[in-house]
């Protein structure tokens, strides 16, 4: 019995440390959000979120002792996110030819609301205009 309870106690050790680390990271991310750090607020928040997710994925979801097949499957999910974001922002961050993508014009932002009708007053060109056209 004492053997069993001792090994039960030992089982808790590592997961509890990871849980403690997760709570400390939670404290850091919520606490730092109230300190004005400019761009670093966002950097800290998302880095901490990534660190917390990594702790859960690696230790609680056992990627630390998984076979290559499982790790590749997990990585496939992450690659998908990378492709989705980099290709989408490759478009949005470079599409400043009509001015609509850099910031939402106030009128464009209110399209569909009651006070501004269903359609924008002036439609923006949907295709880039290279050079001068008659």
């Amino acid at each position, binding site marked *: 019995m004492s053997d069993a309870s001792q090994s039960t106690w030992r089982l808790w050790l590592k997961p509890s440390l990871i849980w403690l680390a*997760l709570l400390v990271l939670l404290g850091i991310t919520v606490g730092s959000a109230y300190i004005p750090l400019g761009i670093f*607020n966002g950097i800290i928040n998302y880095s901490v979120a990534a660190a917390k997710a990594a702790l859960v994925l690696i230790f609680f979801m056992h990627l630390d002792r998984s076979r290559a097949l*499982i790790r590749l499957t997990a990585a496939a999910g992450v690659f998908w996110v990378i492709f989705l974001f980099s290709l989408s922002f490759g478009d949005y961050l470079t599409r400043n030819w009509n001015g609509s993508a850099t910031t939402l014009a106030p009128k464009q932002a209110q399209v569909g609301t009651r006070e501004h009708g269903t359609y924008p007053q002036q439609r923006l060109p949907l295709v880039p205009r290279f050079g001068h056209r008659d």
Partner: protein
Amino acid sequence: MSEVSPVVHEPWPSFERQKMAVSFGMWVFIASEVLFFSGLLLAYTIYRHLDAEAFKIASRETEVFYGGTNTAILLTSSLTMAMAVHASDHGFRRMTIRCLAATVAFGLAFLVMKGFEYHSDLDKGLWPGPGFPLHPATTQLFWAFYWIATGVHAVHLSVGIGIVSTIAVRLKRGTLLVKASTFEGAALYWHLVDTIWIILLPMIYLVGRA
């Protein structure tokens, strides 16, 4: 239900292979869930990029107390879920049942807190549509994301609570053996729901607080 499921099922030649299949199947499912949620996250990121100021105004209205407390609750539920799998690996039946029950309790606590939070949000009239209290109108995009993301997450969590309580009851009744590979599969799903919340926390609650 009275029939006891064997530990190794058809067509697996060994328990090792079956466990591998459970993990692989769950991870393929998780990758598809990542695909599903990252569409939402991408929409959020694009609109935040287009109108950062509105997202700050909108996010300041969220209840960071509920968000933070719920994160701590879910992180703790992940600990008890991980411990349930550890205990089942070692054949500790009673400990597995207790850890699963604790996980369900934490999951329910999360939903109760979420209910209080939704009540407070609705009291403030933060449901996108005519007469929305915040300006500019882009703040409604943030709140649309809030309702969809937290709502879909709550549905996932409710499914998790259903799965975990089912296997806990079956283990208690003796229709599921403590060494079954079911626990690992359920745990992977539970941790996924936790991970999604970890990502949602800074996007919803921590924008523009400083």
